[in-house]
């Protein structure tokens, strides 16, 4: 059989007879006639020249597996990378639901035909609301960085002010996204960013520095809890109160898996809360597992500034639960350039997976997970702190990430990590490029994925590497 005459497996109408039949219905001889709208001088200057076609799944599968086999995954290696994407356990039930065709493939239907999907979305916002202790949670946006950018812009619109205060140490990836959302100084809606010092000893926000920068021109104070460098911000209430005294909004970025043991931000004065949904049952996907959430109290002044889609529960006249989009007129589908920022395709499949994850864990699972992580992370810090020349910057008060300094070993993080790699270990995230004042430091992340043997292996190999 000639390749050109075979119908393509993805295209049911690609049999020659069927195409002929359709052309006959239209009364034309060739499909080219249908493209008459496109002037000839607009057409391709040379025909498409893509590599050889692999329409057989057997060839394509082999080709793809050959390339993907060159990756080393965090399942095969022992990884201590975090920073803006974290390896947590993904329950098999999450994977099963993520791959259900009904959720995987659709776009939009009606309130009735999408009932199940809309309910799953509502169960995402509702369960997250319980973790955060907040009543208004929107459908997710692209990422934590984007959520933070959106939240800062919400605060600027609400207050009519154009300055935001950020902690000196912030994930460089998130910080760069926030920079984009705050616009360059040439733009009339530019938001200026002021860094707040972080206390070197405690790793917490320096309240004197915050006090100096706070004024009646500040739209929002943004901080994270735990901070980028891992510390639990114990002065969160004081920070929120200081912001409120100046009429500024308090925006807090949180790690949702910490909330089984950490105070929910809704309880310590956060006005808008953002964070990543990736730890809630989403694989890292090389960064493709990110998603961000935005939440607040259920007050009109907040609700009317959300750029994201929002879904509400209601009842039909027959008394059935139904779930419907609300406040669509303020998003870009409803208002074009007058909208609150913009929306579009986002990370809605992940919202369903997160709902499954939160339901599986329940209140006891979240507490158990948080307790395990904080204990193992501190145990790891303890083991690493015993190695000659290795210094753990803050020996307690963190959740799952902590900073390890290698200055006294005389070695660079880059070389240490290259050496660890030979032992199948991905060492901590190198902080030296973005934060040279921290010296040769790395951010280590410990989660439920690491058992005691893993942590002892890391300490053993690190001791070898540092003393070689």
């Amino acid at each position, binding site marked *: 059989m000639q390749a050109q005459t075979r119908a393509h497996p993805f295209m049911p109408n690609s049999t020659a007879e069927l195409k002929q039949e359709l052309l006959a219905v*239209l009364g034309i001889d060739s499909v080219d006639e249908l493209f008459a709208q496109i002037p000839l001088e607009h057409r391709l200057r040379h025909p498409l020249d893509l590599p050889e076609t692999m329409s057989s799944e057997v060839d394509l599968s082999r080709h793809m597996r050959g390339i993907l086999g060159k990756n080393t995954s965090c399942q095969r290696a022992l990884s201590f990378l975090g920073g803006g994407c974290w390896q947590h356990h993904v329950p098999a039930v999450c994977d099963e639901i993520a791959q259900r065709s009904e959720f995987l493939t659709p776009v939009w239907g009606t309130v009735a035909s999408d009932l199940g999907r809309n309910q799953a979305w509502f169960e995402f916002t509702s369960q997250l609301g319980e973790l955060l202790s907040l009543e208004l949670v929107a459908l997710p946006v692209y990422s934590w960085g984007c959520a933070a950018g959106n939240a800062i812009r919400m605060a600027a619109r609400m207050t009519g002010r154009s300055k935001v205060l950020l902690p000196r140490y912030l994930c460089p990836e998130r910080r760069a996204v926030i920079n984009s959302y705050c616009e360059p100084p040439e733009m009339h809606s530019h938001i200026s960013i002021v860094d707040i010092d972080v206390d070197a000893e405690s790793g917490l926000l320096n309240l004197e520095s915050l006090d100096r920068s706070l004024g009646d021109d500040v739209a929002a104070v943004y901080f994270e809890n735990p901070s980028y460098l891992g510390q639990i911000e114990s002065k969160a209430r004081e920070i929120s109160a200081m912001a409120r005294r100046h009429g500024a909004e308090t925006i807090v970025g949180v790690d949702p898996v910490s909330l089984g043991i950490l105070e929910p931000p809704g309880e310590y004065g956060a006005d808008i809360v953002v964070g990543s949904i990736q730890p809630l049952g989403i694989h890292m996907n090389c960064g493709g597992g990110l998603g961000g959430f935005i939440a607040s109290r259920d007050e009109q002044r907040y609700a009317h500034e959300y750029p994201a889609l929002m879904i509400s529960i209601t009842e039909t006249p027959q008394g059935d639960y139904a779930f419907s989009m609300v406040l669509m007129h303020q998003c870009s589908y409803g208002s074009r*350039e007058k909208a609150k920022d913009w929306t579009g395709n986002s990370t809605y499949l992940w919202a369903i997976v997160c709902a499954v994850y939160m339901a599986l864990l329940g209140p006891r699972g979240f507490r158990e997970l948080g307790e395990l992580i904080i204990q193992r992370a501190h145990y790891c810090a303890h083991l690493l702190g015993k190695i000659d020349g290795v210094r753990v910057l803050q020996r307690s008060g963190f959740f799952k990430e902590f900073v390890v300094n290698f200055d006294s070993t005389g070695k660079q993080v880059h070389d240490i990590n290259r050496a660890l790699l030979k032992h199948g270990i991905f060492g901590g995230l190198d902080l030296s490029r973005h934060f040279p004042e921290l010296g040769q430091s790395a951010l280590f992340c410990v989660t439920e994925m690491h058992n005691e043997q893993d942590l002892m292996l890391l300490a053993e190999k690190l001791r070898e590497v540092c003393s070689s």
Partner: protein
Amino acid sequence: MTTRLRRYHAAVWDEPVIFEMGVAGRRGCHFPLAGPEVHKTVGDAKDLVPSAMRRRSAAALPEMSEPDVLRHYLHLSQETLGMMGISLFGTCTMKYNPRLTEALAAGDSVADLHPNQDPETLQGALEIIYAFDNLLRELSGMDRFTFQPAGGADAAYTHACVTRAYHAAKGELGQRDQIITSIQSHPCNPATAAAAGFEVVTLMLEDNGYPSIDALKSAVSGRTAALMINNPDDMGIYNPEIMEWVKIVHDAGGLCFYDHANFNGVMGKIRARELGFDACMFMLHKTFGVAKGGGGPAVGAYGCTKELEEFLPGPLVDRKGDSFILSDSSGNSVGRVREYLGNVQQVIKAYAWTRAMGSDGINEASDISVLMNNYMEKELLKIRGVTRSHPGIKGWRMEMTRYSLGQLYEDTGVTVSDVANRMVDFGVDAPWLSHEPWLVPEPFTPETGEMWSKEDVDYWIAVLKQVSDEAYSDPKKVKTAPHNHPIGRLGPESLDEPDRWAMTWRAYLRKKAARATGSVDNR
């Protein structure tokens, strides 16, 4: 044509909201407990949390067993019609999502990669990103792509950011503060331009279906930063003057961005670069076979010419000898529009789809998309009450046609929304209507693409014919639809009221209690 309408009925599970399920103490998963050595060394978890930050009461989440959680969400999946039926959702290009690529992406060599791994351990992912960039260069004529934008709208935003950086580098950003678009462009174009700080100039359509050259000429000036435009538009009309448009904007000093949301009908037929554009965007979750997931994770692949490459967000993938490296160097880069490399797993799926199609397959897919649309148009226009937008424009449309049920509404009082709600009773998901603002009354916009068989399309046509017949003979039946779904329609009260909306279960419980006691609490 005789097409039998199926006896469809959606699954009805009367599934409770998850907060109404479960029993105290039930568990859906366990985690290991810290061992004695760990406990001896670090003590109780509680004491590791600063006292001011300890959670005082457990989150009020449901307490369910693992099988109960699984079955709850399986039931909800069954109460979602989507592509289990036939979905000809226009502008979104409903396609087959090959399950091979889903299986590959679910494997640990894609799913369990961290973006900050040593590039030596990411060679497979980087190789595919590099190779797919090259495939898109061939399809568009552009010189370089980034996959960081997490959707089509995010790619439009990327263009607005690149536009800022380009004019800033020339010292002209303060002066060039306007972006031009048309009323038929997707709302994300004006919205992202405004969110990036630009003033938006919107051109209206002439009788021929696109704005006039004169309108464009009077819109451009020394303030013009860029043009953001789609072509063909959602009505299936291709603007034959687009090369002149690009020249006019270039002469004024602006950049030209091609929103290729509607690429499916012109794949292999035109290249954005050859039309003169500086940048373009492809949606991998639409045109390139990646699953939509009900709205992401998605990728707006943004490509540009050599001249704009230095402004792209990083990191980009380069080849060095036999290996692939990440480069994140240019001082003029816009930085990031989203963290890391974007939705990498979707890039991998799109690469596989493109290799499975090849040059011939992609050409055939655009042929079939346009062929099927015009076949469907011929049949749909035979249905009573259906007209097409701009009826005066003769000739074939591209891969989509916008229709109007204005006549049906005038004759019967049945709206396009009523019709959509009735169509779902036959296992056909609701069609896309139109972006705001509606330029024709009671609009709807189906798109066949290359995935739906002639039988599927005939079925869809037969359903619309049935609903039209019902509108004329028994309008009440249509206006009270759906009848074959677990729930009917919402009541007339708007949910856009603070005492009615409830975006979480806890808000719902509070407001319900307030209504019961007659206390209104409009915070």
